[in-house]
């Protein structure tokens, strides 16, 4: 709707949110009419009231399948007292000055926006009430709202929001921090199931995704990158490619991950992507990979073994005296664990469309972190951030891959090379797998001391990971609050770094997706040595219900107990049983306990059922989507453990070519049932994109041990 609306900024309102980040809203923008006879009135940057008394709500965050495009508007609609049928949802552009933080990552959308989005809706409602009060000459306190109308009960008068919108939009916007929010007990939208806003379009194949961007005269770019990560272009010969009719340009650019002034990517631009892709074999490139071609999986493994045989280079966290406690322990258990590099493999390959004209760059970007993309693209294009307009497309899977914006940086530079012409740069599957930002591999040497009461008295871990100059590579750190460190009295988490040429990055439930496997599998071994099962070891270690302050997140032992007890009750856990395994984890502010049931037939192991209990606070905002997210987390976690997922490196380059080498979960490996239970506890609601994933890995590993009697300490597991 309303393709070109002129914005007339009248006032500006800033509100601060938890975390101290300034969140700015344009609070009273008056927009030109959507059509001459159907005026739309805008109360703030997120809310537009339409003539037919529907309300268009801006969804500000990138939609990667997590359901945020419905969830955030639900919060606004709730406080505006709308009927859901009145709500229309529009994806906003990327513009953090207007909309605040617009990142899809870290399961942060709910905790970060729970109050601010409700305040936006409440402010709009308050303005509509004020308009009615002034029109009718009655006190605002005597008015109520329901189904998109203001009602004056004493006189029986009522007016739709549409009728009041013009007067309301002319009022000063209230201070967001002072607006009155609903009593949570009266919620009528939050906590009810709302289907995805784009589903009707998806089932008809309508263009929604970045790859579907269509513009007049669109050109297409296919990429060539140095197989060894970090290799740069010395020279290239594009004469044969340029001789092909329809090839418009061959451009060398910097994807943003090699030093400025160097290039690591060649882009062939043509009038068809198929043509550009085929023309790649006609371009010969001379690469400088001398500094990066020596890295390999084999090399890391040998180096990690040496590192773990020695003392850690540095410490991530200590509490009490782990060495002294170990001496006093009734029993000491030790083991080594490992896990490989993983790719994200979102099904929509990386892409971005860009057009450069008159010094301005316009982008259609499937990015999870468009603000970073804006800054980086501006820098590599020699522009200022304000020169960029960024449209957010629906995204065919994120999983953390699109928190990094190489495709934007590349597309921006290519667009600059063909000014006036829009160009869509698209990776093929091999590019996508071989030039990802990988979940880093890691190696752990663990020891635990068991106290006389069977609780965990001491925990030591030496973590061999990637980094340089004493600092971890991206997403390769040990979080000091990593569970179970906050509840163990004596802890020593040591870290050693080794170099890699690979770009590393965040994969759904970063760090926790690996650490849960390591620590909860190891604790299953500890429990066995203590004569307990893992849920019981957890209970004894958690102790009384209390909140433990933490560097990054508070941890509540009572909430952890709650989900552990719930999943054990629902699944009928009766101590150690053959084919059953348990895992608990706390990540991204969510508490999850899971049980995996396995069976074996003719040697083949099948995952029959997974049980999930989770606590994400007082409200499961959209239960329909919450269940889909939990299912997705569980199946993705199973995929990381049981189908051979690992990225292998040789001579500096990743070897996987396609899904044959890096398998993804398919329907025939999926358990027949995943039972999900949420405990609604009196704490602010938190996110669900990630925390249901980590516990399923150790639950599976522990189930496999109970089934086979053989402990597997390295991912991926072998299911025999």
């Amino acid at each position: 709707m309303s393709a070109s609306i002129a914005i007339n900024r009248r006032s500006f309102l800033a509100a601060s949110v938890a975390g101290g980040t300034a969140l700015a809203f344009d609070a009273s923008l008056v927009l030109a009419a959507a059509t001459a006879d159907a005026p739309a009135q805008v109360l703030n940057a997120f809310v537009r009231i339409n003539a037919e008394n529907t309300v268009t709500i801006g969804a500000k965050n990138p939609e990667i399948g997590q359901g945020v495009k419905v969830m955030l508007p639900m919060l606004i609609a709730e406080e505006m007292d709308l009927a859901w049928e009145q709500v229309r949802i529009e994806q906003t552009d990327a513009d953090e000055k207007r909309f605040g933080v617009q990142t899809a990552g870290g399961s942060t959308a709910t905790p970060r926006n729970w109050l601010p989005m409700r305040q936006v809706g409440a402010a709009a409602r308050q303005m509509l009430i004020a308009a009615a009060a002034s029109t009718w000459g009655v006190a605002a306190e005597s008015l109520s709202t329901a189904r998109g109308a203001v009602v004056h009960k004493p006189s029986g008068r009522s007016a739709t929001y549409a009728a009041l919108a013009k007067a309301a939009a002319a009022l000063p916007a209230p201070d967001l921090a002072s607006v009155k929010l609903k009593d949570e007990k009266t919620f009528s939208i939050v906590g009810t199931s709302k289907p995805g806003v784009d589903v009707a379009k998806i089932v008809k194949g309508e263009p929604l995704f970045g790859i579907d961007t269509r513009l007049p005269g669109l050109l297409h770019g296919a990429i060539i990158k140095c197989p060894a990560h970090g290799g740069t272009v010395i020279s290239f010969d594009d004469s044969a490619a340029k001789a092909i009719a329809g090839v418009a340009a061959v451009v060398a650019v910097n994807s943003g991950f090699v030093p400025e002034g160097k290039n690591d990517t060649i882009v062939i631009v043509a009038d068809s992507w198929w043509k550009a892709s085929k023309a790649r074999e006609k371009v010969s490139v001379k690469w400088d990979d001398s500094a990066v071609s020596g890295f390999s999986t084999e090399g890391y493994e040998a180096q990690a073994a040496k590192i773990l045989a020695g003392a850690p280079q540095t410490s991530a966290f200590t509490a009490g005296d782990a060495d002294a406690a170990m001496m006093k322990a009734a029993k000491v258990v030790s083991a080594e664990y490992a896990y490989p590099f993983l790719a994200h493999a979102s099904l929509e390959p990386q892409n971005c469309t860009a057009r450069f004209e008159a010094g301005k760059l316009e982008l259609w970007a499937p990015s999870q972190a468009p603000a970073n993309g804006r800054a980086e693209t501006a820098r590599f294009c020699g522009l200022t951030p304000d020169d960029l307009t960024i449209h957010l497309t629906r995204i065919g899977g994120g999983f953390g891959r699109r928190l990094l914006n190489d495709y934007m940086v590349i597309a921006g530079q290519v667009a600059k090379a063909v000014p006036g012409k829009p160009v869509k740069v698209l990776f093929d599957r091999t590019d996508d797998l071989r030039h990802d930002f990988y979940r880093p591999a890691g190696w752990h040497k663990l020891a635990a001391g068991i106290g006389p009461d069977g609780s965990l008295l001491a925990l030591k871990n030496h973590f061999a990971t990637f980094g340089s100059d004493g600092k971890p590579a991206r997403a390769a750190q040990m979080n000091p609050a990593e569970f179970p460190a906050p509840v163990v009295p004596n802890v020593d988490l040591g870290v050693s770094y080794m170099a890699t040429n690979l770009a590393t990055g965040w994969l759904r439930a970063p760090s926790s997706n690996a650490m849960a496997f390591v620590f909860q599998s190891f604790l299953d071994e500890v429990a066995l040595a203590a004569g307990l099962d893992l849920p019981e070891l957890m209970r004894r270690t958690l102790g009384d219900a209390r909140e433990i302050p933490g560097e990054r997140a508070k941890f509540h032992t009572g909430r952890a107990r709650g989900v552990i007890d719930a999943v054990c009750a629902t699944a009928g856990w009766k101590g150690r049983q053959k084919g059953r395994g348990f895992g608990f984890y706390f990540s991204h502010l969510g508490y999850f306990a899971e049980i995996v049931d396995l069976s074996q037939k003719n040697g083949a192991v099948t995952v029959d059922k997974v049980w999930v209990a989770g606590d994400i606070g007082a409200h499961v905002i959209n239960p329909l989507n919450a269940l889909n997210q939990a299912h997705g987390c569980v199946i993705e976690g199973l995929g990381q453990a049981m189908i051979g997922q690992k990225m292998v490196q040789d001579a500096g380059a990743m070897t996987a070519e396609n899904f044959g080498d890096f398998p993804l979960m398919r329907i025939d490996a999926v358990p027949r049932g995943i039972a999900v239970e949420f405990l609604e506890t009196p704490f602010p609601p938190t996110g669900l994109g990630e925390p249901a994933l980590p516990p399923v890995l150790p639950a599976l590993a522990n189930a496999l041990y109970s089934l086979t009697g053989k402990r597997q300490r390295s991912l991926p597991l072998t299911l025999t």
Partner: protein
Amino acid sequence: MSVNLTVNGRKRVVDAEGDKPLLWVLREDLDMPGTKFGCGAGLCGACTVHLDGEAVRSCQTPIADAAGKSVTTIEGVAANDIGRRVAEAWKALDVPQCGYCQAGQIMSATALLRQNPKPTADDIDGWMSGNICRCATYLRIRAAIRTAAGLAPETEVTKPAIVEKSA
């Protein structure tokens, strides 16, 4: 080369290199981006279309092989009764997460129900195992196929258990 084919009931003439995959002809030459590019190797099923009623991977189908044939894509699948029931079930159960693979899933599911109107659970898993859903909406895919076939879903896929609990 010039290729005549029928797409969603409409006669089309395309001028393209004979080895250009049907996928890219649909997306680029016919301006129909509903059919998706996932792997380019016939491994993920995102590009599934019907060629003379059979489910095929359009990334592995040179346009020359589609000459004179009838192609149905996601844009036209609901024109037939089975396709419409499948699409309706997908909506009713809110199957998609990101939604990128779902065109291919719906095309495969429709082809399944055409040749096997009452599939067993194993039939569904066997037939659909060529289609990857990276978000893993598989429980809902199974349930939606059963719903479209008039069978009851085998497990709860829309309502989580929610229990209120004090601290």
